[in-house]
C-alpha cells in the first residue's frame, strides 16, 4: 500500500510535468527573454535607484533625450533644443506626435509636473539630486521652497524651458536617466502610488507593463502608440542575481540574453559559445581609496608607495581574468573628448617601482622592525576577495602588513561613508564625462568623498570647472584639475569593469556600448526564426 502511494505520487508528478508545457522552452518569434542582475525595486522612474532598473525603465519610458542602438545620445521626446549663450537656459521643442499609452496626448506640462514631482520632498526620490543643476532644485527638495519655484516651465504645449543654477554642458546626458522621464500626471492623480500596478499602467515608451510577479518576472507588451512600433512585441525580464543560475538557464535555452556569467567560465564560454559572447568595457572605475584621516595615510609618501606597489595589469590579466581593463587614471580612459591624466609611474618597470616604494616608506619611518600596518576593506564577493588578497600580496613585497576586512555591499558602503576604514575598495559606475568621477574628490561633495580628501587648490580648479559653460573649455579645465590631483594620490585607480554578456546569436540589433544600455525596440529576430 505504502509503496503504491509512492509510485502514484511519482506518476502524478511525471504526468503533471508532461501535461503542462514547459512554457519557457519555446519562445514566440516576437518574444524575447532577458535576464537582469536582480529584482527591480520599483518601476516608478522617480523612485528608482538601481542600474538594472534603468534598463527596464528605458523600455517603458522615453525622456527628452534617449539612447540610440549604440548607446549614443539621440533626440527622444524632444525633437530639437537650444541653449542660451551663458548656458543657463535650455529650451526643448517637443515632438508633436507624443501620446501616453492610453491615448492621452503628452505635452510640455507633463514634463513640468514630472520634474516637480521628482524634487518634491514627499516623493522621497533617492536620486533627486541628479537634477540639482536646475534652478532652486536643492531648495525645493529640502522643502525650503514650493515645487512651483523650480526652474522649469512650459512656454507652450510643445516647448519646455529649463533654467539652471550654474552652467551644465552635460545636461543632455543627464536627461537620459529615468529621473528626468515624464510620468503620467492624470494616472498618478487618480491612483496615487498604485499607478505602477500593471492594471493602471500608463507610460510613453516603446513598451507598457503587462505583469510583474515579484522575484519571478516583469512582462512588457509593445506600446502601439509609440512613435515607431517595436518589432519585438513582448519582453520578459527575469531577475537572475546569481551568475551561475543565469549561465545555467542560458545554456538550457531558457533565456535569450544574460547580463553576466561566472568569470571563471570565461575560457569555457570562449570555446563553446564564441558566437554568443559579448565582452565590453563598462563606463566605470574600480579603485582603492585612502582614508586621509588615518595619520599614516595622511602622509603622501605612504600613499605614493602603496600606489607604486599595485600592479594593475597583473590584477586584470592574471588575477581577475574577466576581461576587465587595467586603469591608470581616476576618470576612465574611455570617456569621449577627454585625455585622462595617468599615474606618473605607469611606464616604470615594476621592479623599479618596488624599490622606489620601499625608499618612500623608509623615508616615512617604516622599516622591517616597524612595518606599516593597514586594513583593507572590501566586499565579500568572490571576485572582490581575490582582487584584494592579491593587492595585500603586492604590498607585502614592500614590507606592508595588510589586514583584510570584508562585508556585504550595504555594510561596506555604509562603512566607507562613515570613514570607518584605512584603505578600501570602491567603484563608481558613471557618465561619459570626467566631472562625474573627479567631483568625488572635492572636499565639499559630502561623504561620497569616502577618504575625506581635501586639497584647496583642487577645489579651486573644480569650482572654475563648474562655472564654465563651453564643453571643450570645461574638459580642458577638468584635465588640469586631474593632472594636479593624480600627483596627490588620493586613490589608486585599478580597473574599468567588464560586462560579460551572452546574447543569442540569432538576435539582431544588439550592439555593445560603454553604458551597456540596450533598448529592446532596436532588437529583432530574423525572418527565418519565425
Amino acid at each position, binding site marked *: 500500500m505504502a509503496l503504491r502511494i509512492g509510485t502514484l505520487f511519482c506518476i502524478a508528478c511525471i504526468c503533471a510535468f508532461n501535461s503542462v508545457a514547459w512554457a519557457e522552452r519555446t519562445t514566440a518569434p516576437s518574444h524575447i527573454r532577458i535576464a537582469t542582475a536582480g529584482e527591480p525595486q520599483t518601476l516608478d522612474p522617480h523612485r528608482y535607484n538601481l542600474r538594472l532598473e534603468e534598463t527596464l525603465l528605458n523600455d517603458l519610458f522615453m525622456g527628452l533625450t534617449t539612447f540610440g542602438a549604440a548607446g549614443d545620445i539621440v533626440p527622444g521626446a524632444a525633437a530639437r533644443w537650444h541653449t542660451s549663450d551663458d548656458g543657463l537656459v535650455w529650451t526643448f521643442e517637443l515632438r508633436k506626435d507624443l501620446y501616453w499609452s492610453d491615448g492621452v496626448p503628452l505635452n510640455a506640462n507633463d514634463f513640468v509636473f514630472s520634474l516637480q514631482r521628482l524634487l518634491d520632498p514627499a516623493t522621497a526620490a533617492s536620486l533627486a539630486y541628479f537634477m540639482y543643476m536646475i534652478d532652486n532644485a536643492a531648495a525645493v527638495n529640502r522643502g525650503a521652497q514650493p515645487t512651483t519655484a523650480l526652474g522649469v516651465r512650459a512656454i507652450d504645449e510643445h516647448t519646455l524651458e529649463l533654467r539652471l543654477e550654474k552652467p551644465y554642458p552635460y545636461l543632455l546626458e543627464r536627461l537620459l536617466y529615468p529621473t528626468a522621464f515624464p510620468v503620467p500626471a492624470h494616472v498618478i492623480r487618480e491612483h496615487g502610488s498604485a499607478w505602477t500596478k500593471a492594471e493602471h499602467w500608463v507610460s510613453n515608451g516603446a513598451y507598457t507593463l503587462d505583469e510583474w510577479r515579484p522575484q*519571478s518576472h516583469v512582462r512588457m507588451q509593445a506600446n502601439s502608440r509609440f512613435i515607431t512600433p517595436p518589432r519585438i512585441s513582448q519582453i520578459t525580464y527575469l531577475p537572475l542575481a546569481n551568475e551561475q543560475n543565469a549561465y545555467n538557464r542560458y545554456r538550457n535555452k531558457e533565456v535569450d540574453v544574460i547580463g553576466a556569467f561566472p568569470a571563471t567560465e570565461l575560457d569555457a564560454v570562449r570555446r563553446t559559445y564564441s558566437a554568443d559572447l559579448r565582452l565590453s568595457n563598462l563606463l566605470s572605475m574600480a579603485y582603492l581609496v585612502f582614508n586621509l584621516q588615518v595619520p599614516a595615510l595622511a602622509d603622501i609618501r605612504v600613499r605614493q608607495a602603496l600606489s607604486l606597489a599595485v600592479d594593475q595589469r597583473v590584477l586584470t590579466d592574471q588575477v581577475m581574468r574577466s576581461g576587465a581593463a587595467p586603469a591608470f587614471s581616476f576618470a576612465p580612459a574611455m570617456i569621449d573628448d577627454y585625455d585622462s591624466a595617468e599615474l606618473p609611474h605607469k611606464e616604470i618597470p615594476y621592479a623599479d617601482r618596488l624599490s622606489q616604494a620601499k625608499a618612500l616608506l623608509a623615508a616615512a619611518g617604516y622599516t622591517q622592525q616597524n612595518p606599516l600596518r593597514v586594513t583593507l576593506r572590501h566586499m565579500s564577493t568572490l571576485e572582490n576577495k581575490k582582487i584584494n588578497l592579491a593587492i595585500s600580496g603586492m604590498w607585502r613585497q614592500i614590507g606592508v602588513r595588510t589586514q583584510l576586512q570584508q562585508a556585504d555591499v550595504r555594510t561596506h558602503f555604509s562603512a566607507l561613508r562613515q570613514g570607518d576604514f584605512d584603505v578600501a575598495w570602491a567603484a563608481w559606475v558613471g557618465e561619459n564625462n570626467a566631472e562625474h568621477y573627479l567631483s568625488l574628490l572635492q572636499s565639499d561633495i559630502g561623504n561620497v568623498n569616502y577618504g575625506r580628501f581635501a586639497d584647496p587648490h583642487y577645489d579651486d580648479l573644480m569650482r572654475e570647472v563648474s562655472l564654465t559653460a563651453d564643453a571643450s573649455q570645461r574638459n580642458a579645465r577638468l584635465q588640469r584639475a586631474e593632472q594636479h590631483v593624480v600627483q596627490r594620490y588620493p586613490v589608486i585607480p585599478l580597473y574599468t569593469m567588464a560586462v560579460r554578456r551572452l546574447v543569442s546569436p540569432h538576435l539582431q540589433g544588439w550592439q555593445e556600448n560603454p553604458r551597456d544600455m540596450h533598448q529592446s525596440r532596436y532588437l529583432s529576430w530574423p525572418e527565418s526564426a519565425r
Partner: protein
Amino acid sequence: MAAYLLRRGIYTLLSLWVIVSAVFFMLRLAPGGPFDSERALPPEVEANLMAAYNLDAPLYVQYGRFLGDLTRGDFGPSFTQKDFSVAELIGAGLPTSLALGIGALSLALSVGLALGTFCGRRTGSFADGILMSITNVSLALPPIITGPILILVFAVTLSWLPSGGSGSAGHLLLPVIALALPYIAAIARLIRGAVAEAAREQFIVTAYAKGIGRQRILWHHIMPTAAIPLVSFLGPAAAGLLTGSVVVEQIFDLPGIGRYFVQAALNRDYTLVMGVAVIYAMAILFFNLLVDLAYGVLDPRIRFDR
C-alpha cells in the same frame, strides 16, 4: 483540553512576541541601513527618505508602531520593493513556498514510508542493506549539494527540465526532489526501526497467531505504534523544510518567500524581513502545536488536562 489549548495559545503568542522583538532589534543593530548604496545621498534626500518610512522617529516609537501595526496584521510597505506592500509580497511568494514545502513533505512521507516499511519487514536482507546504504548517503547530502547536481544533470546536460524559475509543475520537480531527499532518508530509517521493533511486540505475535492478515496487522497494529516517533520527527522536520526552502529557492530561482528573506536581510529591508520572520515563526509554532496534539490522538497514555 480547552484549558490546555488556551495555555498553549498564550505560550505561542509569547514566543512570537519574543521572536519578532529579537528580529526587530537585531536588524536595527546590523550595520548599514536600507538606503545605503553605492550612490551616496545628499543629506536632504536622506532626510526625505527617513521621514517617508518613519525611520526618523526614536527607536522605541518605531518599535511601538511596529507592534501596533502587527496586531492589526499590517506589515507596512516594503523599504526596497517600493511598488509593493509586505503583505502583497508575501501573498505573491507564499503559494510557491507552500507548493515546494508540501510537495517535498508529501514526497518525503510517501517514499520514506514505503521504503521504511519495506525494509522494516525484511531487516538484514540484501535489499534492506542496499536501500539503507543509499539512504545513509542521501542523509549526508543537503540541497545545496544535490540542487546544483540535479540542475547539471537534468537541465544543462539532458535538457529534460528547466534549471530554474517558475510557471509549470516541471519547474517544481527538481527543487522538490532536492529538498525532500534528506527527509526521505530520515523517515525511511525511522519507520524501518519502528516497524521492525513493533513486529517483535507480544500483541503483534498474538495477532499473527490469531490468523489476522498481514496487511491488516501492518496498518491497524504496527503503523499506529510506529507513527509516534515519526510524528515527533515531523515537527522539527516541517520547520527544517521551511528553512531549507530558503536555500532551495535561491538555487532554483523560485519566487517564494525564502528568497525574499535573504534578499531583504541583505538589503536591510526591515519591514519585509519582519514580515517573513513572522510567517516563519508562526508556521514553526503551529507545527509544534500540531505535533503535540497528534501525540494525544496516537497515544492514549498522553493527556492534556493535567
